């Protein structure tokens, strides 16, 4: 069967239907990329992925190829080396990795084998959040099929390269999605961050070289290997960034959902085109471009291309590329309260700005919503947005938590002031 070039990541996914079994996946061209990869050297694959400019889909947007190149290689390098797949999808409004794991688990398994080969890792962990029961079941089944067929194990397809895949299921905590926290969790410790340096490419899981990549990032790898970096760049409408992107929209749109589109598709095409526009004939109030850890944008940003560089230039973060849409009946202060409640609850408590600052912010927002706001509350919020900055905290959880609030205070300040002035939520 010919591969659909426009949406490689979701070509095998039919919503509501069982994913392809191993045999069906092979018939659709599956594991061809792995066979091709094994004929190449790991260095060649790393170079191809670097040229493709595949940027990390977990939210940070760092070049996957460059991240891979930090891993030590060769006979002198310490081992074993680990690949850790971040499938702890807990970022509010983010649902894209679930689609990929439930919809085409073999694609992820194949991606993991190729990527592990490229960095010469001998063990790969898939770290899945506990609530994703169906994802875990389907990945377990796909991995078992892959072992039985010789795609995994001591010698992948008789190549002499060996790989074990282990599925680690979490038990509920957003902090585990932070890379160092995730390594601690796999080791059976509390998922607190680690100080850097050392970089985890040098000192990672059990002190050994480790690479952590997001599910969607890795899912692109077989397609890059099969069709080349130029093809991958050509999929995109973005200036520099390659590939397609699984975009999402939720909140007050007519048709919430997920769509694989060229990287660099505009917010307008996603909200008005794919999602059918704002529901119930209302107007757009604002939107988060990339899940909970991004600044609000407004109507004037609708023509911004949704890619890392363009969203950064517009003053926000592309994050996970899953949009949250507020209409003019949705209270932005209430939305911020929900966001900060999430972050304060999910803080691991390791460093003070996060442990103490986030609950204070959440309680202040709750007071505003309940009509107990006071003069000076907005200044308290401003202060947290200003002071909870990178290098004031161990990891990015608290700094990410301040992005949406900072954007809301900038674009919807009048709404915050009205809560204080009127001693109630004007949207109730």
């Amino acid at each position: 069967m010919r591969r659909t070039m426009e949406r490689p990541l979701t070509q095998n996914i039919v919503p509501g239907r069982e994913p392809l079994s191993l045999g069906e996946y092979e018939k659709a061209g599956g594991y061809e990329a792995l066979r091709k990869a094994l004929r190449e050297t790991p260095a060649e694959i790393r170079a191809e992925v670097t040229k493709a400019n595949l940027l990390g889909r977990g939210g940070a947007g760092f070049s996957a190829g460059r991240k891979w190149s930090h891993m030590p290689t060769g006979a002198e390098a310490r081992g074993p080396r680990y690949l850790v797949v971040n499938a702890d999808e807990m970022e509010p409004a983010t649902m894209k990795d679930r689609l990929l794991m439930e919809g085409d688990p073999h694609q992820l398994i194949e991606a993991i084998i190729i990527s592990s080969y490229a960095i010469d890792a001998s063990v790969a962990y898939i770290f899945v959040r506990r609530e994703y029961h169906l994802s875990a079941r389907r990945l377990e089944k796909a991995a078992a099929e892959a072992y039985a067929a010789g795609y995994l194990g001591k010698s992948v397809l008789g190549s002499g390269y060996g790989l074990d895949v282990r599925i680690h299921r979490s038990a509920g905590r957003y902090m585990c999605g932070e890379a160092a926290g995730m390594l601690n969790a796999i080791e059976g410790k509390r998922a607190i961050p680690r100080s850097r340096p050392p970089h985890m490419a040098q000192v990672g899981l059990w002190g050994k070289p480790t690479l952590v990549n997001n599910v969607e990032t890795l899912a692109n790898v077989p397609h890059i290997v099969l069709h080349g970096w130029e093809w991958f760049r050509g999929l995109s409408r973005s200036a520099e960034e390659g590939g397609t992107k699984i975009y999402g929209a939720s909140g007050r749109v007519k048709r919430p959902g997920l769509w694989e589109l060229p990287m660099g598709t505009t917010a307008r095409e996603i909200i008005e085109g794919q999602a059918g526009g704002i529901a119930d004939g209302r107007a757009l109030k604002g939107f988060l471009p990339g899940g909970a850890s991004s600044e609000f944008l407004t109507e004037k940003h609708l023509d911004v291309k949704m890619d890392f560089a363009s969203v950064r230039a517009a003053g926000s973060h592309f994050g996970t590329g899953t949009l949250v849409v507020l209409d003019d009946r949705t209270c932005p202060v209430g939305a911020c309260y929900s966001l900060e409640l999430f972050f304060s609850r999910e803080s691991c408590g390791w460093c003070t700005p996060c442990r103490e600052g986030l609950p204070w912010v959440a309680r202040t927002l709750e007071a505003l919503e309940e009509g107990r706001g006071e003069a000076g509350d907005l200044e308290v919020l401003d202060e947290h947005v200003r002071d909870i900055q990178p290098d004031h905290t161990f990891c990015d959880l608290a700094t990410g938590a301040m992005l949406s609030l900072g954007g809301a205070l900038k674009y919807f300040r009048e709404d915050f002031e009205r809560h204080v002035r009127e001693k109630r939520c004007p949207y109730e």
Partner: protein
Amino acid sequence: MLSERERLEIEAELARHGGDRRSAVTEALVIVQRHRGWVPDEAVADLADFLKMSPDEVDGIATFYSLIYRRPVGRHVILVCDSVSCWIMGYRTIREHLGKRLGIALGETTADGRFTLLPVACLGACEQAPAMMVDEDLHGTLTAEKVDEILERYL
């Protein structure tokens, strides 16, 4: 004392995952909870012994995770999503309805021991917000009527 079945299941987990014994601690807590409904103090001590950790270390893990219960819960646990997309799409109405219908607040268990109601972070089902999970089943596009109908299925 860990039961024979609990020990066997944890051993199988250790064999499957390699690594050192403590790396199985999360799954071991889940196994105990699957058999007993929650994780009592004596199980924490027994797991510590079995995994060569201190009881405090095991409790540190148990209390870190929102889905490990250190107090008894009902036969069914309702996880109601309060993250931003569900919040926008009517979380508060659903929570209020659940509270009224069951006569409990978040964090509480019904007197008959049937349901415990807990908030949960985004279930990754934002296209069908508002959403909740009962035991291992995801339910989306909730309305008050639909919630009533769903609860009837969990006896």
